[in-house]
């Protein structure tokens, strides 16, 4: 395979051809990194804009900035941990390779998100947006749809990441361990980052803001814990 002539374009990424994906993480190529970053910014940005436009155009602009930022910050924040976990679980990847692998899976997820953003936008266009019309049912329907799309994008991206890891290690068991290790770390940090960066959709009766005033008060897990406490008390 002539590595100079090869490029990793979007269809190749989505098809998840292991050899091509492996080529994509072999070494840092500026052009590829720019390509990954641009797909993440555009794909997640479009989906974020569709999410936020339910509340207001300004919220759409904020969420279009915040969603790609959350993905990139999670990748960067866990880069060191991910590179340490990989060899511990039997996969000898270099630091830059682990970063590229996670970035590559984020690229796939964001491409899927971007492709679904016209559908989400159409759904939101058909959902009551102003406070007088907004019912909790409409708000919940929007939330559920977004969660379903994000879950689908995440699953598609992680299946491709697993195929790549399996190709690198040659063993399904160690590939699975690495994947779940990385997923656990990314979910842990990603949840907190999204908590800090809220709102993404925007509650109808709260003002449009880039960050909530209490963004750095408490954390995601404390809130979940206290919510559970309220349910059981």
């Amino acid at each position, binding site marked *: 395979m002539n590595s100079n002539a090869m490029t990793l374009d*979007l*269809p190749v990424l*989505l*098809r998840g051809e292991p050899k091509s994906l492996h080529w994509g993480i072999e070494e840092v190529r500026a052009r590829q990194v720019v390509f990954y970053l641009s797909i993440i910014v555009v794909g997640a940005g479009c989906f974020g804009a569709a999410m936020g436009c339910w509340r207001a155009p300004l919220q759409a602009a904020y969420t279009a900035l915040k969603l790609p930022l959350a993905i990139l910050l999670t990748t960067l924040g866990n880069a060191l941990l991910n590179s340490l976990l990989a060899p511990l679980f039997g996969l000898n990847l270099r630091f830059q390779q682990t970063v590229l692998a996670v970035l590559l899976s984020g690229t796939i997820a964001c*491409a*899927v998100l*971007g*492709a*679904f*953003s*016209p*559908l989400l*936008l*159409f*759904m939101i*266009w*058909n*959902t*009551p*947006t102003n406070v007088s*019309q907004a019912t909790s049912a409409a708000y919940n329907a929007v939330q559920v749809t977004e969660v379903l799309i994000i879950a689908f994008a995440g699953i*598609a991206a992680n299946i491709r990441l697993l195929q790549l890891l399996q190709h690198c290690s040659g063993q399904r068991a160690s590939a699975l361990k690495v994947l779940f290790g990385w997923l656990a770390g990314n979910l842990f940090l990603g949840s907190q980052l999204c908590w800090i960066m809220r709102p993404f959709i925007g509650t109808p009766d709260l003002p449009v803001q880039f960050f909530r005033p209490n963004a750095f008060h408490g954390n995601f897990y404390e809130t979940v814990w206290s919510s559970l406490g309220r349910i059981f008390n």
Partner: protein
Amino acid sequence: MNDSNPPLIPPAINVTSAAVPLGESPEDRLPIYGIAAAMEAILRQPRRVMFQLRQSASGRLIWAMLLLTIVCSLIYGVVVGTFSGAQQLWAAPAKIALGMLACGVICLPSLYIFSCLSGSHARFVEVVGLVAGLLLMMTLLLIGFAPVAWIFSQSTESVVAMGVLHIVFWFIAAYFGLRFLALGFRHLSAQTNAGLNVWIVLFVLVCLQMTTALRPLVGTAETFLPREKKFFLTHWFDNLSKETPKRTNNTQASR
């Protein structure tokens, strides 16, 4: 050798078969020139359209199909508009043509993503061509139903009855359009059809919601587009529960 034996007839290639590779039959390779040829090819030789979409110069065919889709939508829209007359004679065609194209544009990126995730090597332009073919097949069939729809629109006062009739025609047209798309998808060497099946559900939902988002298509209203946003099932049940058989001056029962 007996000379009186009739010559053997070569086995016909099933137009809906995906087992035979595209281009195998010489008929598949015949170029499609012009709008009339595109219309005939999609009805009689869909494999020929699919083969041409794979060629590098498929742009003209795609444009021809889109142009035909717009013309057919406008014609069917006029028939829909004759039920109420007046401003609906131009509003219904405009909404149906725009709505059809909008549905295609909204669903196109997800179809491309599904095709890639299914392992297909299709180019984006091929997927665009398949969606254009789907829309053309649907609108051509709607044109076929237009005389029937017109007869009914002249003989009934019920907005709901006309709405149901158009929806039934739309479903029949969509079935054949989606059959074309599914066949084309199989020729894209996709390893699974799961993605396509999900996409078909999404496409049908988007189209049905579009009829509610652009209402009234049948009947009349004070405004060109609705002031209230509704889910299509809610809108249908609302109309069925308070049906008043008037073809005009009834904004509530408009569909």
